[in-house]
């Protein structure tokens, strides 16, 4: 057997917090052959990214390698001198970060950043590297490969930037590339073309890769083997097909099972009943840029309406119109059959109370200087006028509703909570106002799948118990499948299609709905291959959206 390209043995990493070193990775082994793609999955905090960086012999500030070895092609990266590592990084080992937009230097053109590596390492001259760059862009199916490199990072779309970054990692034809969640920040339709590009180029150049992600369906398309991490320990490693069909560990099985959550279908809405919230022919614009064009749909009591569409489709703008943050240019919002004032400042306290919102990023939705108790108590006091013991009792019962122990969490600060717990506090704050209608703006998109599932189940239970109506903004169709009763598909500020969920997931569709549905990765490892065969490489992603 030939020597593997990368061999990690008994690697332990520690992170510094509060003056002590706490373990992040507790002795992980990893072997990677040339040209092999290894998928690394796990929840956030499992140590995926830390392990990915350690495979390059690199640690972030405040992290140290305490034990183990990382041998790349016979060179021990942990013992190698800085000069030796400088010669390897960027040339033979490359890294693709999660957010290309944040990783490109906005002050330089893309191609200038692309050629830096090859020229510095003396692999190619600048002219050669530029020519090679164009060839790579062509291979990655970037539009206008001759000229796109001469743009600045802000002038190209997120998906294109991510592909440009992959091209940059390929510039020196490395033996190993670490992909750290390269498609997590992208829309499904964009994600698919980035996935296809990465897969092709890795295969063509016989590059080995470590593909880090928390999305199982994505890793199923990309990886030859999958390694599952949990809190710094390896759970299991297996061939992709084996892993998907027959996981051996309980934890892996639970990860696989997440996607099976689905609520029973509800009876159709009684004809002629008054919707809780009705959006009627709403036009809206930011300044002079029009964003919404004649948007209309109804939301009924005790039901969930999912509003789907990619970023920029106007789904969050609809929410801003309903809450009154962005008064519409035309049209109106009705609540229980009555027209609400367009501007939230003109609404009565009771009207404000009835419409609550849960935000995407729980980090910025909770005041970091207020305790959990104070955050939830404020609307209780503000709307219901409760004080003293009554207020405390109400907050405690709200905390119980969101399945957090009141005595333990009442006085904590948001920084002392996990992502899922923060999101639960956001839900409790919305519930505290005792509203009829709650807008959930991408509430699970920043969370791990297991945690997200918990939040979805909680929201579903609350709806059943309290008869709430939800407007659920999301771009994740798995979430739609799990929780929605009705679906509204939006594109470019217009409603493309709307109807009950059962109808929406059954053809025939509007072509855009069809594209959106077919772009959601499935757990089948052949899904991407089949899809590409079926539609052709030019009929996916931005290219397909552009044709509509």
């Amino acid at each position, binding site marked *: 057997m030939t020597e593997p390209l990368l061999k990690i043995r008994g690697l332990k990493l520690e992170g510094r917090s509060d003056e002590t070193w706490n373990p992040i990775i507790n002795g992980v082994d990893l072997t990677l052959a040339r040209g092999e793609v290894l998928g690394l999955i796990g929840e956030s905090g499992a140590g995926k990214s830390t392990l990915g960086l350690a495979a390059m012999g690199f640690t972030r500030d405040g992290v140290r390698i305490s034990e183990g070895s990382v041998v790349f092609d016979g060179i021990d990266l942990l013992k190698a001198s800085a000069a030796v590592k400088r010669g390897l990084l960027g040339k033979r080992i490359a890294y693709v970060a999660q957010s290309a937009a944040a990783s490109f230097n906005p002050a330089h053109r893309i191609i200038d950043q692309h050629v830096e590596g090859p020229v510095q390492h003396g692999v190619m001259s600048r002219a050669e590297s530029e020519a090679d760059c164009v060839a790579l862009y062509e291979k990655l199916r970037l539009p206008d490969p001759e000229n796109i490199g001469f743009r600045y990072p802000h002038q190209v779309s997120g998906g294109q930037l991510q592909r440009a970054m992959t091209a940059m990692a390929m510039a020196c034809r490395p033996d190993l590339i670490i992909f750290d969640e390269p498609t997590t920040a992208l829309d499904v339709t964009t994600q698919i073309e980035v996935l296809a590009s990465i897969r092709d180029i890795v295969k063509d150049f016989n590059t080995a890769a470590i593909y880090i992600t928390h999305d199982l369906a994505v890793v199923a398309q990309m990886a030859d083997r999958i390694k599952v991490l949990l809190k710094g320990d390896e759970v299991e490693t297996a061939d992709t097909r084996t892993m998907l069909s027959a996981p051996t560990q309980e934890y892996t099985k639970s990860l696989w099972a997440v996607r099976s959550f689905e609520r029973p279908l509800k009876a159709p809405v009684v004809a002629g009943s008054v919707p809780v919230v009705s959006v009627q022919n709403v036009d809206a614009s930011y300044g002079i840029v029009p964003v919404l064009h004649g948007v209309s749909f109804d939301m009924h009591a005790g039901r969930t309406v999912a509003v789907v569409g990619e970023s920029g489709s106007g789904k969050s703008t609809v929410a801003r119109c309903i809450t009154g943050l962005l008064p519409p240019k035309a049209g109106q919002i009705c609540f229980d059959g009555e027209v609400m004032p367009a501007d939230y400042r003109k609404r009565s306290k009771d009207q404000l109370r009835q419409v609550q*919102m849960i*935000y995407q990023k729980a980090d910025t939705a909770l*005041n970091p200087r207020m305790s959990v108790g104070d955050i939830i108590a404020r609307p209780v006091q503000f709307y219901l006028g409760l004080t003293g013991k009554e207020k405390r009792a109400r907050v405690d019962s709200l905390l119980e509703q969101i399945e957090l122990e009141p005595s333990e969490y009442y006085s904590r600060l948001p920084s002392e909570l996990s992502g899922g717990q923060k999101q639960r506090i956001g839900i409790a704050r919305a519930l505290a106002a005792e509203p009829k209608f709650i807008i959930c703006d991408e509430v699970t998109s920043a969370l791990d799948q297991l945690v997200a599932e918990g939040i979805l189940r909680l929201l579903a239970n609350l709806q059943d118990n309290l008869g709430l109506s939800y407007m659920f903004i999301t771009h994740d169709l798995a979430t739609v499948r799990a929780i929605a009763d009705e679906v509204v598909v939006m594109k470019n500020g217009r409603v493309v299609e709307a109807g009950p969920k059962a109808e929406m997931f059954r053809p025939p569709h509007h072509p855009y709905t069809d594209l959106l549905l077919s772009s959601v990765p499935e757990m089948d490892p052949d899904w991407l291959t089949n899809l590409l065969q079926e539609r052709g490489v030019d009929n996916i992603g931005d290219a397909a959206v552009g044709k509509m």
Partner: protein
Amino acid sequence: MSAVFNIALGIALIAALAWVFRLAGQKVTGNAPRFRDMPFGVAFGYILGALVLVWLIWAFVQSRSADLVTANKFFFLGLAIKGFLLFAAAAWVFRLLGRHIGTAGTRKLFRTIPLTAAFGILVIIVYAILAIFANVIAPHGQDEILQGVAANIIPGSDPDFPLGTDQIGRDILSRLIYGAQNTVGIAFATTLLAFFIGGSLGFLAAVVGGWTDQILSRGVDVLMAIPSLIFALLLMTIASVWSSRLGIPLTVFMVLIIAVIDSTRVFRLARAVGQNIVVMDYIEAAKLRGEGMWYLVFKEILPNATAPLLAEFGLRFCFVFLTIAALSFLGVGIQPPLADWGTMVRDLAAFISYAQFAPLVATLPLLAAGAIALLTVAVNFVVDWMLQKSSGLKE
């Protein structure tokens, strides 16, 4: 030409030493990563630092030599080294004490505190005690012309007046202690006022935005366009006329004028910090709840802006303090016979020309100047530390 040649030779020598140092380090330690990965610039820095240290020790020995001419030449350097060592030791002892005395919270704080910040806190505490208890601590009154005592006693020559007396026979130690009360007290009041004005207007501009923001911001721009010291001098000249006519002490006008001028800087910071907070979702949530302006500013925004504002408070305090000293030095600030450090520097400034042959005499004006410098450095150390802590929190 030879000077240039000497400098070049010196640099070449240091470079050669650095190269040898690194090579020797690699050989002795068996190529440990510390020496193996050491950039040449770092090795150069080590050698340069070592040479400077050697020179300082040599200079210190010189300052203690029996030959008066040599000793005078290095007198102030020797004093500075002694002072530095003394302060460092004091700060170290202070930190050690802090780690073992006090509540669990302060003990934890002192475990992570850098020595510079411990020094800063120590100096601020000492100044505060001196300022508050000046009447008890000072051996004489601040404007008391001591009968039967010589004027211009050199520091250290009379045990009754350890820091000597000034031209009209007032005890300098007492005046320094009272100066802490006057100068620091007034500076503190002025800074508080500046923060109240600038902070509340800045947050208001950030929350309301639109026309309110435009009017306030452009007004601040106009005020900031005028050089602040000259503007303050101009206003103080006008105020001196008013103060005698209205019977209000000039000091009150000075506090108001400096507070308004400095509040422009606070306004800018508060507005910038406020704007970053206003876009947060929790502010949107509070607005949608129907909360009023008062709640938004004081419950939602202010608690999240304390770290940068507190850091700015320290810096602003130094600037206000220096402005007051400068105005007093120019004769329009704190009026005699009140003891004030700025005025003291001006009054005793003539003695500085004795520095070459009678360095002890020249220390007279430097005492007040040193008191100003020490407090400024101390406050900045503490501010640096707080900034570092608050930026670490954000991470």
